[in-house]
């Protein structure tokens, strides 16, 4: 597994950044000993690129901490899986091809499926399942929004290019209001007015008031002036967008989402509004989309022998492990070396980033895999739901893809001759 660096004088490669769910594709990579971002100053992308090992030769599979050949590691992984009756496939930080391939394996082994950002994903899925949602996408925000309300989030902190991605293509006046946070200078732009409106109480109180005001309901006490002003502007806006971040909305984030969806619904009775939930990085929305279309049910579904069961609460990775409701952990994490598996006293198979530090503990197989968009081409879903962005291979680092590894393990399980058959 050796990297083949491209000469530095090669022109920068038009590139899609896989390191957050914005999936910026108008940027480029200069490829030398290191990979350098061109066309953006995104700190997140720069940090992630700096973590990519220049030489992946040292990244070899291990079995219980000892270096092993890929074949040995695959055999060991297949043996562990064949011996498991309640496997948990978690992490799932990979691309479309990776999830497709893992799904076939999960189906064969009756596994539970969850993502490392499962809590955040469920915080947007659950309000959708309960009441529904009206959402919008980046191009619509860019083209149409005259009022953008960032509720309880400063989007650029976790999605550094967010405001650049939604900047209008032609001069247009608009307001960006931060509710519950300070204004974010990253949101500044020509013809853009920034304002901060404090929470009245907590996020739930604030949304309750906004909902009442937007519906013209009588209130027991007069609302704080800035909030009343915001409600009036929401009612007057031609196209209001409420941006929130399920992963940063606390343990009851789903209820924040539900209140926002209700507000959007109220506004849509007379004018136009939509919400936009920021999330889905590390292949989170990708995993949820692919699992949903293949199985019919979202993440946190168990493909149990007696039937498929979806439970956004009980089938969370942490709860499954705490309740000892799994006897094997398959952990997939191909974007971020620090996304290591949770502590679990279980046989563990890790399909991990080449720079992932060794994890101590239980019987374990580690197989380094390519990062989609670095060592391999691929596809990921963008944070607004329906747009799939192609990823290009930045360099051939010799690492196998998650799809290839899952396929090879499945083959071993299906072939009794390998001795690993179930």
């Amino acid at each position, binding site marked *: 597994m050796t990297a083949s660096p491209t000469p530095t004088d090669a022109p920068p490669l*038009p590139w*899609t950044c896989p390191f957050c769910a914005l999936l910026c*594709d*108008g940027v480029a990579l200069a490829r030398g000993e290191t990979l350098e971002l061109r066309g953006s100053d995104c700190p997140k992308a720069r940090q992630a690129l700096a973590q990519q090992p220049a030489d992946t030769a040292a990244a070899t599979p291990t079995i219980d901490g000892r270096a092993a050949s890929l074949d040995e590691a695959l055999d060991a992984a297949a043996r562990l899986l064949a011996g498991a009756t309640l496997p948990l496939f978690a992490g799932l930080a990979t691309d*479309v*091809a990776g999830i*497709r391939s893992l*799904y076939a394996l*999960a*189906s*064969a082994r009756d596994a539970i499926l969850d993502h490392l950002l499962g809590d955040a994903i469920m915080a947007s*899925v659950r309000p*959708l*399942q309960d*009441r*529904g*949602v*009206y*959402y*919008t*996408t*980046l*191009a*619509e925000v*860019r*083209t*149409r929004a005259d009022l953008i309300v960032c509720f309880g989030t400063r989007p650029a902190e976790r999605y550094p290019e967010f405001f650049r991605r*939604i900047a209008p*293509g032609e001069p247009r006046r608009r307001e960006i209001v931060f509710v519950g946070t300070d204004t974010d200078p990253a949101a500044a732009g020509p013809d853009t007015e920034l304002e901060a409106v404090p929470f009245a109480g907590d996020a739930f109180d604030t949304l309750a008031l906004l909902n009442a005001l937007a519906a013209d309901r009588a209130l027991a006490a007069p609302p704080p002036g800035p909030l009343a002003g915001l409600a009036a502007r929401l009612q007057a806006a*031609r*196209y209001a967008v409420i941006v929130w971040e399920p992963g940063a909305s606390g343990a009851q984030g789903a209820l924040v989402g539900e209140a926002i969806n209700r507000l959007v619904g109220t506004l*849509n009775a007379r004018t*136009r509004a*939509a919400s936009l939930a920021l999330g889905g990085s590390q292949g989170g929305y990708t995993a949820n*989309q*692919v699992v*949903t*279309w*293949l*199985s*019919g*049910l*979202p993440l946190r579904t168990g*493909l149990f*022998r*007696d*039937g*498929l*069961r*979806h439970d956004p609460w009980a089938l969370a990775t942490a709860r499954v492990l705490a309740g000892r409701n799994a006897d094997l952990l398959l952990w997939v994490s191909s974007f971020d070396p620090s996304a290591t598996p949770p502590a679990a006293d279980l046989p563990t198979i890790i399909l991990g980033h080449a720079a992932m530090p060794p994890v101590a503990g239980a019987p374990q197989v580690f197989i380094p895999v390519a990062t989609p968009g670095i060592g391999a081409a691929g*596809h990921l*879903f*963008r944070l*607004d*739901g*329906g*747009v*799939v*962005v*192609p990823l290009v291979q930045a360099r051939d680092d010799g690492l196998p893809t998650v799809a290839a590894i899952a396929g090879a393990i499945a083959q071993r399980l299906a072939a009794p001759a390998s001795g690993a058959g179930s």
Partner: protein
Amino acid sequence: MSTLRLRGGRLYDPAHGIDGEVCDLGVRDGRIVALHENEPVDREHDVSGMIVMAGGIDLHSHIGGGKVNLARLLLPEDHRPAPRTDNPLELASCGACTPGTLATGYRYAEMGYTAAFEPAMALSNARHAHMEMGDTPILDHGAYVMLGNDELLLEMLAEGGDPALVRDYVGWAINAARAMGVKVVNPGGISAFKFNQRKLDVDEPHVQHRVTPRQVVHALARALTELAVPHPLHIHASNLGVAGNIASTLATIDALEGLRGHLTHVQFHSYGTEGPHKFSSAALALVEAVNAHPNVSIDVGQIIFGQTVTASGDTMTQIRNAALGSPRKWVGADIECDAGCGLVPFRYRDQSYVNALQWVIGLEIFLLANDPWRVVLTTDHPNGGPFTSYPHLIRLLMDKSFRDEQLARLHPEVAAHAALREIRRELTLYEIAIMTRAAPARLLGLADRGHLGVGAAADIAVYREDADREYMFRTPEYVFKDGELVARQGRIVATPVGGTHFVEPGFDGAIEQRIARYAEHHHALDFRNAAIGRDELCTCANGGQLLVTPCAVHGTNGT
């Protein structure tokens, strides 16, 4: 090389005028061939007494893409209980009205269908749609890209709509999305709703672009004609579901000015305003117009009583329908300056006057239309009901006494007064074979599907004759896909990856500058990633065959 013979079956192959003739059918390497009677074959099945047809083709079924997946997300309760089958060939997958893609492929194939077409692929969601279809096993598939609510086209039309410009843009879009055709949904209306317009009739202007649905329909139909795309413009007309919308539907036919058009789920567009409930059947008016316009074909969009979910690009309509939804929740979205999406769960009830009448209207359209080559059997899955109800629908069409029994159970006013009571027609196996195979293949320009002639793909369904047509069509004895046995008596026995049908009309590449300029100012995807290449399509579609239908001079009105 592998050969197969089906011996002694009764063939229904309307493309060749074969109506129940007893005849052997030979297959070599996935294609239908003429085999000598004594020629040895690798496999032979005695199908004497059985009915042999080409594999079914569903030309309008929401099987893949963003909105279908949102429907799955919205209705986890539709997927309970979710038992797994004992068949090790089937990967885990569940759901009733919007099953997972895997279950969708298995259930279609089990009923003798070998192809289905997603009618509402958003340009910005095309990769996703192809991925879902690629993960729908066994079936070949394709999709129509939605145009006519994309701001760029509306902008072009507002500037005067230079036909050459529109043609090149449509040609580019079809190639970029790897589509089989073009669908227009509530022409201009989805875009208008983004500007808070709540209603848009055929001659009403879009509040922003000042363009009418009539102009949109005509411009798109003309572009497709000039590009020689075999499938006519697929039209979800204005005012879906609104009492009195027959006027909009007839005006839409008029807007075609003789150009080819396929009016989809016409049941939802054939409503009058007569009677005490100001809601009546306009099936007769619709059928008369279709009969009189050989340039027009239709699919019906029959409703089936029970729970389903309506999945549509038509946000303007769905926000209105949301109040009628059951369970009461819904999803809507404005998408990438080119589309929208709205999902409203529905429970069609036979004791509801409106639902009962919708059921009647669909059947009246099937039974009154005089040219089955221009009528395709659909439920607009899942909007009217899930595709798994096709065998039931076929029985309703073939069996007058069964139909009468069902009719008698409906809302009493409908049961007592529906014109359907007086319609004695029972469709024949030959006519069913037209509406479920031969006609859709012809309307799509698929020269080697939908029939049993030499050279055709060996997509074949063999049914055991049974007076209960529902039972018969639910569980074919054998289903072959490209000559491979994929289902036997309702059990999947092989799960090949299906192929992707698409067309590649030629266009003047200079149009790309205009599109790139628009994208730079409005879109959120680099223009370099706007189009799906052939290799990328293959990856998205899970490695299935790429099936290109040529755009050449074709016959008019699909006959």
